């Protein structure tokens, strides 16, 4: 430590003394600091003039700075504010413009062109990757694998509502309600077993005697079960009802292929008959723009199972 007492005569002190001899120098502020301070004052005044700043009565000073953007092809100019800045950003920032160029190409192209043109397809994949992640992956999972029992697989060629671009687009716009009634009240346990054995037989699983399969067939195609009304004759599915094909051994609701044995498989089918099914695909017409829906439709179609 230097000895403060030596310099005491040269520089003025504040005159306060604590603890007997503890004193403070009263040095002038450094020049650079003082000018820096004046600069902030000048900056503030310029800022007040340029940007919204002071409340006056029930409004406020808007500043001279302006932003121009378009509404329905008409130019509109307002005082500077973050909302106008955003509108301009959405309309004319470089990344927005570049993205719009691609989106306009997609909007103008037919699905067939999109799905066969490598450039367009690459754009669809990268753009959809983002919106699929935000809006779809929580249910259908990344890559479209779905979850058995909860959300259908979009990456295979087994469709509830149809895998053509028109049907996929319709699914996205209006949403879907998958509904199968519960048979708790209409079929007894034996009848359920029969029809379950029949359903498994058309999917290629052996087990159960021919009599039971025959009885199940009659329930499936008769008034008692009426399964054919939705699942179609022979159980090949009906996309207008969102009823799946039961003959292809692809299962969306129950995990039949991984069941231990035939009894377990029968039990699984019976659980569907007892509980019925009700599940909902939300409508996206209000949430996504038509072009986003188009991009997603093409994306889902190219995941693997498009028809």
């Amino acid at each position, binding site marked *: 430590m230097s000895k403060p007492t030596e310099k005491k005569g040269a520089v003025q002190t504040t005159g*306060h003394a604590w603890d007997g001899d503890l004193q403070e120098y009263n040095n002038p502020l450094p020049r650079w600091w003082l000018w820096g301070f004046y600069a902030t004052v000048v900056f503030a005044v310029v800022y007040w003039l340029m940007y*919204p700043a002071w*409340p006056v009565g*029930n*409004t*406020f000073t808007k500043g001279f700075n302006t932003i121009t*953007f*378009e*509404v*329905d092809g008409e130019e*509109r100019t*307002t005082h500077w*504010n*973050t*909302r*106008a*800045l*955003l*509108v301009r*950003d*959405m309309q004319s*920032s470089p*990344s*927005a413009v570049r993205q719009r160029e691609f989106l306009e190409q997609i909007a103008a192209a037919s699905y067939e062109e999109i799905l066969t043109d490598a450039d367009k397809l690459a754009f669809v994949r990268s753009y959809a990757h*983002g919106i699929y992640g*935000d*809006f779809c*992956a*929580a*249910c259908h*999972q990344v890559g479209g694998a779905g*979850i058995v029992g*909860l*959300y259908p697989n979009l990456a295979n060629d087994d469709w509830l509502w149809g895998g053509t671009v028109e049907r996929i687009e319709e699914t996205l716009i209006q949403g879907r309600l998958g509904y199968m009634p519960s048979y708790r009240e209409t079929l007894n346990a034996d009848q359920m077993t029969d029809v379950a054995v029949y359903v498994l037989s058309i999917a290629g699983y052996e087990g159960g005697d021919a009599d039971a399969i025959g009885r199940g067939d009659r329930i499936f195609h008769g008034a008692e079960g009426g399964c054919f009304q939705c699942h179609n004759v022979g159980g090949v599915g009906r996309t207008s009802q969102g009823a799946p094909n039961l003959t292809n051994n692809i299962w969306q609701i129950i995990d039949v292929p991984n069941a231990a044995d035939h009894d377990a498989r029968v039990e699984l089918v019976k659980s569907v008959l007892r509980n019925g099914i009700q*599940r*909902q*695909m*939300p409508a996206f017409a*209000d*949430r996504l723009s038509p072009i986003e829906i188009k991009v997603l439709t093409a994306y889902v179609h190219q995941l693997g199972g498009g028809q």
Partner: protein
Amino acid sequence: MKHETVETNAGLLIILTLAVISVGGLVEIVPLFYINDTIEDVEGVRPYTPLEQRGRDIYVREGCYTCHSQMIRPFRDEMLRYGHYSLAAESQFDHPFQWGSKRTGPDLARVGGKYSNEWQVQHLIDPRSVVPESIMPGYPWLIENDLKYSDIQARLRALRRVGVPYSLNDEEYQANVERFGEETARWLDINRAEENLVAQARAGNYDGNPSRITEMDALVAYLQVLGTMVDFTQYDDGYFVQFR
């Protein structure tokens, strides 16, 4: 007052310091209460129904706001991900508001209608069963706990006291009919709060079990209404700019 008096008097120093730094806050905040344009002129925003309000209470109780904001800011990337930026009008009946700035999870200001009720229930019970990489905790008790709503009238009365237009008498009810329309006014009638709450839970069947009213019913009803009250297709790009 001498400099020395202030510097040697801790109590006085604290008071004067607080007075000086509060100027900044006051100048920024106070005008918002009387500037005409603070709350946008927009149709559709109404106070929460009794069931939604109970759901909101549970949202606060469970601390969902520690990970989720409800404020879509006016930036391009936020608009692309979450939808239209939040309006002041949309949280005018929120006490306390849930804007927040901590986003461990996504913003929820417009999560209403994004997913089905079944997804919400499944996700709240066990987030990783639908989003394998999720770090959100599960809230399985919500589906087990019966919703307590015997005090719903008191809760709505408290909100009414801070300015939320729930109606207590005929005059206020008529004012609500005028402001929100007959149907909404009925939901906002404090005298019918229990009845309304039960009716909405029965009809909505948010948790998939119509025979019970659980905390899950209330929370999902609340989540499903978030950000859905304003129909943005009614307003052009420039409309909300005029309020800033």
